[in-house]
């Protein structure tokens, strides 16, 4: 039980929260809030997007790039990126089946109950203004790149946590300069959100996709995602880049963008480690001096680069 649990130092409780009797922490941070699977959509062979409807009480509003701890009752809890925007009480999460918990979540059917804690961590900064909803970790907020070109580079399922940033930017299209989305995937069949790519283009984004391995009938690019960087027009001084994917892919992409002249503070990456508590108490997600559940997952590359270069921590 978490009775008497205190709000961690430096965190603020979002306005409007009703603290359950006997608890000092709002539901959804230390105790999972009950959610019901409203719908499930297969993105690829092993990846599913769930739309979750809150039961009695929703978790706090989330910002693009944050994650939750999703609980498959009786099996376990895992950190999952939020892949939708906070347009209502529903929560959109995209899950790749890679283990017992994620397989159970991917198999969840409409009407099934899951637990949700969060939202946790830092965000991409898109659309974030003073007074934005959610719990703000001290000293880690990234600014809204209003007026800048956005370069979004995704590798595989890394597109999921970038999607809310893209949707937020497209919804306020005039707020940003050029929006470019580069997607790298293992194969055409493993590209997530394929049904949405054209709508993103229609909404004003330059969306390009490349695959490592082509299949019969594929007419698009074949090669690593960094090769696409050389194909787009980038103004280094006016560009803020968001990168999410396998760590090696992020490092290579960040290095390529840095070589083009984009400042490391304008390159944002989303890192993952073994997130458990979500509130920087347990230390499982420690990466050097950083606790990624609180100080991450989104960090600027100036901060992330030294951490990614250390062979062991």
């Amino acid at each position, binding site marked *: 039980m978490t009775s008497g649990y205190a709000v961690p130092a430096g965190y603020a409780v979002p306005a409007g929260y009703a603290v359950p009797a006997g608890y000092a922490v709002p539901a959804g941070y230390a105790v999972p809030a009950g959610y019901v699977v409203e719908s499930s959509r297969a993105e690829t062979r092993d990846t599913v997007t769930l739309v979750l409807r809150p039961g009695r009480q929703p978790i706090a509003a989330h910002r693009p790039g944050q994650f939750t701890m999703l609980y498959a009752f009786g099996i376990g809890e895992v950190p999952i990126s939020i892949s939708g925007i906070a347009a209502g009480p529903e929560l959109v999460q995209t899950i790749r089946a890679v283990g017992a918990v994620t397989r159970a979540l991917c198999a969840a059917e409409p009407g099934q109950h899951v637990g949700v804690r969060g939202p946790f961590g830092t965000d991409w900064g898109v659309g974030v203004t003073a007074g934005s909803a959610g719990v703000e970790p001290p000293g880690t907020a990234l600014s809204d790149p209003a007026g800048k070109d956005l370069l979004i580079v995704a590798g595989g399922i890394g597109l999921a946590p970038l999607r809310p940033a893209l949707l937020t930017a497209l919804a306020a299209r005039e707020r940003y300069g050029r929006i470019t989305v580069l997607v790298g995937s293992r194969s055409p069949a493993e590209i997530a959100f394929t049904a949405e790519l054209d709508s993103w283009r229609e909404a004003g984004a330059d969306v390009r996709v*490349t695959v490592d391995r082509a299949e019969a009938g594929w007419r698009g690019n074949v090669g690593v995602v960094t090769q696409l960087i050389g194909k787009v027009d980038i103004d280094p001084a006016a560009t803020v880049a968001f990168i999410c994917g396998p760590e090696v892919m992020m490092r290579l992409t960040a290095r390529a963008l840095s070589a083009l002249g984009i400042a490391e503070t304008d390159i944002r990456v989303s890192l993952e480690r073994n997130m458990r508590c979500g509130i920087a108490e347990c230390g499982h997600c420690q990466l050097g001096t950083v606790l990624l559940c609180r100080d991450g997952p989104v960090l600027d590359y100036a901060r992330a680069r030294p951490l990614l270069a250390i062979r062991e921590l």
Partner: protein
Amino acid sequence: MSPVPAAELAAHPFLRGMPDGQVAQLAEVATAAYVPVGHRFFEEGGHARRFWLIRDGHVALDLSVPGQPSLIVETLGAGDMMGVSWLSPPHEWQYGAKALEDTRTFELDGAAVIARCDADPALGYQFFVRLMTVATRRLHSSRIRMLDLYAAPGQTGGR
């Protein structure tokens, strides 16, 4: 095909920064070409004599497999250099190349380029540094693809 003004050739990313006099030498052995979608530049196993600097469009490098559609190894586009098999024996194309879109290129005669590089080592140095850069980048990309990065769990701690 038509002759290439040196200024146009110099604008291609592969030659960017090369001294004007050297670009002018390459322009003498270059022609501008436009090919429609579906055009095959070369076939795997064919005699390799030329290379291309792609100005715009989209080209697939492929391998043929009996009874199956060709396997696309990599795609190239605007700003890329295509074709290195002309450079060394057995001078055979290791892959095929087919236009996936209408494509504009500069086409250069390999033997003529080598002759000019032999005659002007400064040109040879400039040319081969660029060629090596392309080869290194392709090798690097191939190695990364061999890692099959996207097969690994890529989401936030997903288990």
